[in-house]
């Protein structure tokens, strides 16, 4: 009987450790959005771009960008844990559904994500920008652009701000979003 009790206790301890480990992993990857469910849109899209600079690849960027001319790039990428982009262009409207958008948006409600109000795109696109904060530290950024014939999701994991995102536009597969930060209002 004692043996059975001890075995159960050990089993419970192991399970707690496993659950605790999973929770820590989930927290660390909090700013990483699940966007692979959008892959099936490629079947309908006229153009699909899927960029995935995962944590392992980002860890090697110090080795890749080790030249004298790469200082700026190294600075931009410093501390980033991942860059993920999925962009779909369609020939006609209605090729992606509200549920496709919702599958991403639902992850941005709560969980530390906050919409940055007032960010606009010079291109006239309907763009929404979200930041994940933990205390005063930025954990990640998400950009959603849902146009009638285009659907783009950009997810950057790590300490990234709008200025850094602007520098990343057009590089590493990050599309030209033409983002403009809200201008501070003049005090009369």
């Amino acid at each position: 009987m004692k043996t059975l009790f001890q075995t159960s206790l050990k089993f419970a301890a192991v399970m707690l450790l496993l659950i605790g480990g999973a929770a820590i992993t989930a927290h660390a990857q909090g700013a990483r959005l699940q966007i692979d469910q959008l892959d099936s849109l490629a079947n309908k899209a006229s153009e699909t771009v899927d960029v995935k600079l995962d944590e392992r690849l980002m860890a090697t960027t110090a080795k890749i960008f080790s030249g004298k001319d790469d200082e700026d790039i190294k600075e931009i990428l410093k501390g980033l844990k991942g860059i993920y982009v999925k962009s779909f262009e369609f020939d006609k409207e209605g090729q992606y559904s509200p549920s496709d958008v919702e599958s991403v948006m639902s992850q941005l409600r709560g969980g530390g994500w906050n919409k940055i109000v007032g960010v606009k795109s010079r291109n006239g696109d309907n763009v929404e920008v979200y930041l994940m904060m933990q205390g005063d530290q930025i954990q990640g950024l998400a950009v959603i652009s849902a146009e009638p014939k285009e659907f783009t999701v950009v997810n950057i994991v790590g300490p990234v701000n709008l200025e850094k995102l602007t520098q990343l536009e057009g590089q590493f597969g990050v599309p030209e979003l033409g983002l403009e930060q809200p201008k501070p209002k003049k005090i009369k």
Partner: protein
Amino acid sequence: MKTKLGITGLLIATIVWTPLTSTLARGDDFDAVVKAIEQFYHVKHQSLPLLARAGMKGARTVARVRGGDYKRIADAGSVRLVFFEDQEFNSHGRIAGFKASIQNALNEAWSPLIATLSAKDEEQTYIYIRDAGAKFHVLVVTIERREATVVEATLAPAVLATLMKDPGEMGKTLTDDAAMNDPK
């Protein structure tokens, strides 16, 4: 007690090592990708001698790939190249399925960098990167309606850095250099 500890240790070792050994057992990833293309599209790859007989890309291509101007991008002798010529590449509306099959063919050491797909034109480019110590292995799969290319090359970090700044063009640059006939 020792027996119990031994069994526990063995169990943990089995759990940890099983995914690793199954990955290693897959063998050559380049061949696995070629096979994945053949199975998905029901096509057969052509070896370079066959292409030479057909009067297409031939010995000069091999020379170029193994040295020549290609040295500028990839390490000499590090390039592996497979062509699919004059065959039908039609994913029948399941282009996303092919993307998944390529991913499944590769072991986890490969990081996907970029995939560009055009379902209407059946055009696809996939780029994967693998750390190889001081250098990097880059695998590029390019599919068009009537032809496909698989290129694996070893690149110096500086070359990869230049190419990575515009990953959209990276696949084209590598594949063009590997597949182009020597203009001389």
